[in-house]
């Protein structure tokens, strides 16, 4: 018997904007995009990691009340959500590619103890650390 994480969700301010960002700028592709009224279940996955889906959810009704949604939008916009880590095999090359298409980097590639890492944010404010695996 084994178990694994299949799906992890992020809160985003706008699902269309997030979809464009994760698909066109980060190289993910759409896994599921289903709507029912205001509700939209949207997940993307990376071609190199088909076992994991990244959910891009907009907090709001009917799942959450307006006040709670507003609080979550503020938390995301303040960059207060927990850190996310993207593993890459070449951090500097990934930085060049992503920077060229307008990804907002908050830290350029930096070497630390044999690893190279950089930081960027998605349009909503979610912070990603991009780390090159030690070779």
């Amino acid at each position, binding site marked *: 018997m084994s178990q694994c994480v299949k799906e992890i969700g992020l809160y985003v*301010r706008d699902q269309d904007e997030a979809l464009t960002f994760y698909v066109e700028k980060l190289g993910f592709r759409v896994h599921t995009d289903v709507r029912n009224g205001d509700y939209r279940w949207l997940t993307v996955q990376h071609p190199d990691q088909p076992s994991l889906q990244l959910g891009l959810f907009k907090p709001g009704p009917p799942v959450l009340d307006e*006040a709670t949604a507003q609080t979550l*939008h503020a*938390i995301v*916009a303040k*960059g207060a959500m927990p850190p996310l880590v993207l593993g890459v095999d070449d951090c500097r090359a990934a930085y060049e590619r992503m920077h060229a298409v307008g990804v907002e980097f908050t830290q350029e590639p930096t070497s630390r103890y044999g690893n190279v890492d950089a930081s960027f*944010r998605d349009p*909503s*404010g979610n912070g990603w*650390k991009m780390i090159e695996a030690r070779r």
Partner: protein
Amino acid sequence: MSVDSASQDPELLRRLLRAKDRMDAASHEDWPVRRLARVSRVSEAHFARSFKRAFGVPPHRYLLTRRIERATALLRDTDRPITEIAFDTGWESLGTFGRTFRDVTGESPGAIRARARAEAHEFGRVPACFVSAAHRPDLTIAVSEKRRREAPDINGSRQKESP
């Protein structure tokens, strides 16, 4: 999170975050309110108030915590001279650095370096950038206020010495 902060416009918060990110990326640089306000695309008068409301500390104090954090990491992880670390983390003199560092952390830069070397590296599996954040000072009051609060002890002992 306070109700006050939740009522701020997320679009404004996102732009304030950009100013915070810029300080994070280059904490050794000077960050006058004018420069930060421009990054966030708000007026200078609006910036300081909005930043404090959003992040709980005024921008200059936030910058101070990042400088102390970075200096602490350099003291811990490198063999570089303390003078060099002081200038590289944004201070204009070694004296100001030493005094501010002691006021904020309660220890001198040299003492922190010695203690860090003696401790085992229990954070080995955490990415280095997050380890550094774990040592960020939690500066909930102004440094001047901190000095003021600690001052009565000094005065008290002085009075005993000279009755």
